[in-house]
């Protein structure tokens, strides 16, 4: 609809600019803080323009971390986060692709039982079963390990349902044609189903990677060895000490480095991200 209201448009832009500014503001402040020297924070209020200590702060955190409060080098925590996020993402994708394939393309006794079993995981987030889950992981000797960080999180009802829904839209005849062409179930899965699911996999990948990267409570529970600290929980180790010993410039440098990877993922894969987000909720 063509609407000609110059002041209306102006107002709209104004609202949006203020909105965007509000959204960006905390991050802007963090970036500024990460460029300051240690002295700035003793003098009262934080400046709103960048200082000259960016390189120094970032490289200090990257290489050394904050040993005083037991935070390992950021480089290492980023790596841990990356490994954990990838393991969770790939794990969730693989097991839900396989489950959806089984549920859609096979008929077998107890199919519905399995379906409900998977569905139930939706209702049991880690937050509601913290201690017993911790006990299981401890009993399995998986504390302080990447296996412990990722495997307990890779059951995924959401991803399974998404793939199930997608598989249901694939024409029946495609599977029949493949069977006539001599493809058994696994070959059909590999040659036909997976290539057709690429977009869905990619979209889900974006969402799951962010999910994995941002895990907080779980790593907090099961890692006591700083070698396995992930970046998001590592920051918390620094902030608990912040009020007595404010190293804000270093904390904020870490915050920026922790937030950057998933933010970049969203910015560069915005279309896939939006698809992933809206489809998983359907």
């Amino acid at each position, binding site marked *: *609809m063509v*609407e000609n209201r110059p002041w209306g448009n102006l107002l*709209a*832009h104004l609202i*949006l600019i203020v*909105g965007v500014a509000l*959204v*960006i*503001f*905390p991050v802007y*402040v*963090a970036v500024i803080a990460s460029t300051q020297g240690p002295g700035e924070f003793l003098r*009262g*209020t934080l400046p*709103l323009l960048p200082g000259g200590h960016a390189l120094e702060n970032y490289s200090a955190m990257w290489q050394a971390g904050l040993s005083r409060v037991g935070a390992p080098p950021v480089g290492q925590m980023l790596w841990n986060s990356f490994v954990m996020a990838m393991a969770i993402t790939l794990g969730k994708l*693989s097991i*839900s692709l396989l*489950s959806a394939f*089984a*549920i*859609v393309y*096979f*008929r077998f006794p107890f199919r519905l039982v*399995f*379906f409900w079993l998977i569905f*139930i995981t*939706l209702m*049991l987030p880690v*937050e*509601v*079963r*913290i*201690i*017993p*889950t*911790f006990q299981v*992981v401890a009993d399995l000797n998986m504390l302080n390990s990447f296996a412990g960080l990722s*495997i307990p999180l890779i059951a*995924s009802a959401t991803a399974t349902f998404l793939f199930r829904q997608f598989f249901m839209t694939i024409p*029946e005849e495609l*599977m029949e044609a493949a069977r006539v062409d001599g493809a058994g*179930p696994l070959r059909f899965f590999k040659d036909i189903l997976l290539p057709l699911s690429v977009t869905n996999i990619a979209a889900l990948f974006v969402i799951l990677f*962010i999910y994995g*990267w*941002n895990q*907080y*409570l779980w790593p907090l*529970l099961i890692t006591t060895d700083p070698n396995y600290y992930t970046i*998001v929980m590592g*920051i*918390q180790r620094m*902030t608990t000490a912040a*009020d007595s010993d404010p190293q804000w410039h270093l904390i904020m440098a870490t*915050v920026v480095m922790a937030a950057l990877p*998933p*933010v970049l*993922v*969203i910015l560069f894969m*915005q279309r896939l991200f939006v698809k992933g987000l809206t489809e998983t909720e*359907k």
Partner: protein
Amino acid sequence: MQTKQMTFPSRWLPYALLAPQVAITLVFFLWPASQALYQSLLRQDAFGLRTTFVGLDNFARLFDDPGYLNAVSATAVFAVGTTLLSMGMALLLAATVNRMLRSRESYTTLLVWPYAIAPAIAGVLWWFIFNPSIGIVPYILEILGYRWNHRTSGSDAMLLVIFAAAWKQISYNFLFFLAGLQSIPQSLIEAAAIDGASPFKRFWTIVFPLLSPTTFFLMVVNVVYAMFDTFGVIHATTQGGPAQATNILVYKVYADGFVGLNLGSSAAQSVILMAIVVVLTVIQFRFIERRVNY
């Protein structure tokens, strides 16, 4: 629930395909959940030496415990505050962006990225700009005559965590509102315009009612988010304080069980939380079923 009309004939393969998912579900979800149920009926003495079966006593005690009731009301305030603030902002921004033609993409890009930021980090960011001694916002508030201090004021602390939690969730709500707005037939709005309704009136009488499925869906999602996904916000900032003011239910489960080692009570709290998730999930799915039928 359907399969394909035609399915592969295999006796064992589907079980093998489901095995990883089912194994993880059993070991890390169902078994712990059943343990929580079981432990919620037990009580350990102070030294963890003796365990006795106490039936529903842990639950009874919870509802007599002012600390728990406080957590319930803190959770309610936090969830409602976060949901309203985040959805309100998101709706305003989405409705405004939806008017734009050329700049729509750019504004969207500028608004979606906070989704990627972990709740814990969102908490730290807001905690920093509200820091009573060096934060920029308290500085401004001071000028306006308000002494902000979330270390001592419970309501300040609550506001702080609401801001942080709502801020992170704006992107999500924005995207769904925008999608909802774009699925409203343009012709309806044009018809209203021809009938002489002002833009503002058009929004409240035509657009907003048509958006109600999205709004309802987001309300459920936001409540779930505020109740269960915001542990990091609290833990990385206020840690439930000051004086329990921000001690929301998930945080309390963790603090009582993992830190305070009060296993029976923590398990009982877990069970109550599970019941809440079950109810919310059912609401969400019933609603989504309807949405699919539209």
